[in-house]
């Protein structure tokens, strides 16, 4: 798409239409808000969403307001997937197959309390797109740890003396184990990649899953004006690689020639401020190992298909 500005042609890389309106209740610099804005640019207005308890149950605005621009059903915490399943089956029965059922949940509602319903929907192959906007803790209730909280992080339930120990749950591996037709990671700092993935998911039948990285300045303790910088560093350090699993075939979408050290990512965020040099080295080793494993997965499954 192109647009004329002062006689010059500027090539736009994102859909120009804004479905979501600006009058929402998000914190400054909220990654999750950009996340839905991009998602709806990709999906358009023929979308019906289920939103469980999460930041977005507040961000959208109090009754009778709504910023999303598409119909929303606010559902119980653990029911993003099952509510979307119901919506999807109703749409099919009522002859509205051209409308996308979108489950839109935070990491708590996905990795923790909503995991059973998500697993059920994925195993049945219900025709929904499930996007988890991951800000790595229960941010809406005030920064409590979830199973998406990474090793080393401070939260209000993992105070500095007892910071989170143990790895973040690998939700992509869990979804891949369901053999859903499509899963992908995405990052709000890479909107073109993200929008391409959402559009791809829209055109696939069955359960599609996108694990979307969305920083939270309030909970991560970084200034709101560096949200994109933090998000981009997560991918540039291989903390959060961009890849997709299309019918069990892994493809890494962004291979960093020379990954930056994780310390560059960690040091921007107050939630990691207490970490010793030894812990930072441990995190670096874990990130390196995970990256190597991902490269092997890409290679192994590609060979298997060929």
């Amino acid at each position, binding site marked *: 798409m192109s647009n004329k500005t002062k006689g010059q042609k500027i090539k736009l890389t994102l859909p120009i239409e804004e479905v979501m309106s600006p009058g929402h209740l998000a914190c400054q610099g909220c990654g999750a808000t950009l996340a839905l804005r991009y998602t709806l640019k990709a999906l358009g207005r023929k979308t019906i969403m289920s939103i469980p308890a999460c930041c977005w*149950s507040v961000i959208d605005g109090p009754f009778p307001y709504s910023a999303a621009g598409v*119909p*929303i059903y606010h559902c*119980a915490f653990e029911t993003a997937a*099952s509510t979307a*399943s*119901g919506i999807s089956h*109703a749409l099919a029965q009522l002859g509205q197959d051209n409308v996308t059922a979108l489950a839109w949940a935070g990491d708590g509602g996905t990795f923790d309390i909503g995991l059973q319903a998500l697993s059920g929907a994925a195993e049945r192959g219900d025709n929904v797109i499930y996007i988890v906007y991951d800000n790595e803790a229960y941010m809406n209730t005030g920064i409590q740890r979830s199973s998406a909280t990474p090793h080393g992080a401070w939260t209000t339930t993992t105070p500095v003396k007892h910071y989170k120990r143990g790895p973040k749950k690998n939700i992509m591996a869990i979804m891949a184990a369901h053999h859903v037709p499509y899963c992908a990671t995405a990052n709000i700092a890479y909107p073109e990649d993200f929008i391409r993935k959402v559009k791809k998911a829209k055109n696939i039948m069955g359960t599609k899953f996108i694990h979307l990285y969305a920083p939270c300045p309030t909970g991560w303790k970084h200034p709101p004006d560096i949200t994109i910088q933090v998000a981009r560093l997560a991918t540039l350090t291989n903390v959060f690689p961009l890849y997709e699993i299309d019918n069990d075939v892994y493809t890494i979408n962004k291979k960093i020639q020379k990954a930056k050290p994780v310390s560059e990512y960690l040091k921007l965020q107050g939630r990691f401020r207490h970490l010793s040099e030894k812990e930072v080295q441990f995190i670096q080793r874990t990130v390196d190992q995970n990256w190597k494993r991902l490269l092997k997965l890409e290679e192994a499954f590609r060979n298997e298909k060929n």
Partner: protein
Amino acid sequence: MKKVLTGNFAAAYGATAAKVNVISAYPITPQTTIVEILSEIVADGLLNADFIKVESEHSALAACIGAQAAGARTFTATSAQGLALMHELLHWATRGRLPIVLANVNRAMAPGWSIWADATDSVAQRDTGCMQIYCENNQEVFDSILMSYKIGEHTELLLPTIVNLDAFFLSHTSQIVDLYDQETIDRFLPSYNPEIKLDIENPRAFGGLTSPDYYYEFSYKIQLAHEKAKEIIEEVGKEFYRFFNREYHLSEPYRCDDADMILVDYGTIAGTAKDAVDRMRDKGIHVGVLKIRYLRPFPEEQVIDILKNAKKVGVIDRAISYGHEGPFFTEVKASLYGYRIPIYGFIAGLGGRDVSIVDIESMVDYMQGNKPANHIWIGLKK
């Protein structure tokens, strides 16, 4: 068309006759045959519906909520532990004003594991705002499911309904059930076409953050809907009579006109009590039965009207609110506030213990020879 059917088949055929669009359910004894028969009916193309075979009762009702909000007529069925797991979403269905119909096979709560009749499971859902019916026989199961859609979908109500049937006494007992003809049913119950739903042409958010400025009035409107439901239930009952020649009300008196003593009950015990009353009448004891069909909305006016001239009232509960008394007894006693009528609370049949005609007669004996008490346990082993 008449068929010999168990209560579970009657429930499944009720949902089929109501032409539901989406079914979502999870198996639990003794509800299981409801989901089995519906699976076959949908697979055979006898009902054009989507059956979502979910991984829990919680997801079963969540999926019904999503589907109903998107404009589908939905059905689910469960029992005991499953209903308890749905508890959160029963509130959601009510506050979302979604006229879902749920068949619940009344079964005792564990531990110890029991699959037998007990109404404590559904009585525990009393304050969720769902309408609740207790059925006496399999015809009433079939008829109640049809009527519940018509009643719940009324634009002034928009309320979900739980249709209760006793484990095994109905769920697995065969009786003759008239299934009528589908054309007449379609005229009685047209397809569901809600005015307000998830609609891409009119994008709205449902159930979002609601401040004290609004929540209170939303609650008041649910109360108004329940009050209105008492009228609509009677109206739809009359309409049902015109279509199918069977009469239904909020409650049902049996030989109460000249009764000195009236036994209030619900579910299958009502049938046994009617037989007991016939036997006692033959012996010259002036006794009647008031069967409560609806726990919510509670038919307070009818209860007062029928009981106010009785000399003594007994209430039989196959449920218990621990630390107090039988839950229906509480309701009846509160309704009769200001009337100086001795009222006896009987507990009977918990966990599927048989309640026989002799047990019912022993209650009347007790009422004749004793002062009232709030929880008199019938058939308790020493």
